[in-house]
């Protein structure tokens, strides 16, 4: 315990200053989210991570967001344990047959208004799993997707950039 607190007192805040720069791999799709709601979410967004068949590569990168370096909490973003608490679904991997129904039900259990972000090449177009017998299709084949992040896996920086971009996309003031 003494060692722990000595470590805490000697380590600085390692969080990067400011928001990450926009990432070219992030695509915004047509989205029905109202400006007013987007402004609300701009200060507070609760995220539920859904894995309908990912290889867990994207999960590792998403896990990095919680750490001290990327620290997504400073933007008012937070991972939650239940889709009913969430405003945003972060979906990774291709949708497998067994998980298509749970994914749909998770989407239905999330209260409106909600944002869906498809993370990684597999979620975008099934990646290397395209055409597999156990794969239903990309995330957009099952639920409507608002934002897509490319990469295999995408870095925590581009995932964070995607979430922030989704929040600022239609706000009246220019994105910063």
């Amino acid at each position, binding site marked *: 315990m003494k060692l722990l607190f000595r470590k805490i007192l000697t380590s600085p*805040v390692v969080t990067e200053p400011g928001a990450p720069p926009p990432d070219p791999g992030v695509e915004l799709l047509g989205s029905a989210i109202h400006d007013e709601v987007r402004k*609300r979410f701009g*200060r*507070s967004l609760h995220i539920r991570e859904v894995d309908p068949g990912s290889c867990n590569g994207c999960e590792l990168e998403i896990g990095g967001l919680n750490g001290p370096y990327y620290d997504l*909490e*400073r933007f008012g973003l937070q991972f939650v*344990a239940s889709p*009913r608490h969430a405003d945003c679904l972060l979906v990774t991997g291709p949708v497998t047959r067994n998980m298509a129904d749970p994914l749909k039900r998770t989407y239905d259990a999330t209260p*409106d208004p909600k944002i869906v972000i498809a993370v990684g090449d597999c979620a975008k177009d099934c990646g290397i799993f395209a055409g597999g017998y156990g794969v239903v299709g990309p995330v957009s084949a099952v639920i409507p997707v608002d934002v897509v992040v490319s990469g295999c896996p995408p870095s925590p920086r581009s995932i964070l950039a995607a979430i922030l971009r989704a929040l600022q996309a239609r706000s009246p003031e220019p994105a910063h």
Partner: protein
Amino acid sequence: MLRIAVTIVQWLVAVVGAPLLVGVIRKVKARLQGRRGAGVWQPYANLRKLLVKEVVISENTSWVFRLTPYVVIGTMLLAACIVPVLTTAGALQMLDNIILLMYVFLLGTFFLALAGLDAGSSFGGMGSSREMAIAALAEPTIMIAIFAIALRAGSTGLNEMIRRSVTDPLLLLNPGHLLAFFSLFIVAIAETGRLPVDNPATHLELTMIHEAMILEYSGRYLALIEWASAIKLFLFLTLLGNVFFPWGIAVTLQPSAIAIGIVTLPIKMGVLAVSLAVLETGLAKLRLFRVPELLSGSFMLALLAVVSFFFLR
């Protein structure tokens, strides 16, 4: 007139200031983890957002599920009337009873446990059974720790206890007082769902206690429950700060006394909030089966506090 105004102000401080306390604790924890963390006003943004969200309710729930958030917030708003936050000379002296306060808290816990069972999800039921187990273990400790202070004050009224102890110069040298403080501190941690009994930041359903019961709530219902648990934390810390370290709280309605009360409250709450954050950073969550050991240790402290009263009076 002044009495009523002060009572309303201290009620508002507890009710409106509670999310700020949660924000401060989270901020201090983030800094200790080397993170920048969210601003201290973040809980207010979360609550405001939840209020405009749609409410999703499972088809399998009954009226208990929809009633519970109102019962929970109602009990906390009532509890905020009972606890002396700024002054002991408030207008609601007829409510002034610590036993009443503890059972008002328990009423909220009871309904939350019912709601956890109501939706029929496995994690909700698990959370309810754990919460009830902890509440049942914490209750005798609370009562005995209360008796330890009430015996010395000769009253179960909170205001009376504070008025008696504020004039006692040797307060902190009294072993009964200190033992009762530590025992009530442990119980407060268990009751408000903080580490090492429960982890308020957990995402793992299997380790949840309080969070597991509210998994099914969304929108404004969730906002009410989160607000209520912030008020509960605020009131428990106020209780610890004001009953055990009563200096600064206004015993009369003189403007100068009330001004001192307004200045000392944030200092006391700040010290308690920072120590809670440091404690939570240094401790891992206890295994569920070791929680009874912690609580029975706290029970022993409370018992010793009562015993010491009879030896040392």
